[in-house]
């Protein structure tokens, strides 16, 4: 599954995307965040304040409870700041 990071989440994690195989226990976006936080100190820093993190699945905004469908593109980013 492809996970994308934008703006300061990308900067903190040090990567714009990761191709990941999720464990079965990871079902929702919130689960995914909990699992990603364990991957590195950078991930932990990026997701430290969840109120500043927004998510999209297959390019649609979603909230933390949303179930991740198989083969989804999941993206994490800060609140948008416009042009």
């Amino acid at each position, binding site marked *: 599954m492809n996970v*994308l990071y*934008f*703006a*300061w989440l*990308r*900067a903190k994690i040090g990567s714009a995307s990761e191709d990941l195989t999720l464990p079965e226990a990871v079902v929702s976006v919130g689960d995914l965040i909990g699992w990603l936080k364990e991957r590195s100190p950078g991930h932990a820093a990026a997701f430290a304040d969840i109120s500043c993190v927004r998510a*999209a699945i297959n*390019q649609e905004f979603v909230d933390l409870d949303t179930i991740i469908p198989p083969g989804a593109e999941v*993206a994490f*980013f*800060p*609140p*948008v*700041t*416009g*042009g």
Partner: protein
Amino acid sequence: MAVRVQAERFDTGVEIEALVAGNFAIGGVTSFTGYVRDFSTESGVVAITLEHYPGMTERMLETIEAEARQRWDLEAALIIHRYGRMTVGEPIVLIVTASSHRQAAFESAEFLMDWLKTKAPFWKCEETKDGSEHWVDARESDDAAAARWGR
């Protein structure tokens, strides 16, 4: 549908001309061009970089352009939004709306700009004279402007 997300500069006059040409139902055209202004005396900002979510940005812009066409009787509409690094004086964003009546052209342009400022997946990073960079936080005044349209 006329939505472009691009790194290259654009020319407001050329874009208006191309959009209007040959459509004699158009009575009024509103354009809005947003520029990188010189914040340097206040904050030392000399350039900005806009990051976006390729694919999602285009989809969202097409959706909002379609919504504007539904809300107002438009003959033509264009959204151009740049990404990447831009310095003071460069154009960032262009909205052009054309209608038989001026009110529709004005309102739809303002609607699209308010939306772009608050909902489009762009993230702004500011670069100061000393070379440091920082990501800009979302602004409440822009949210208030967008809320006028009930979105």
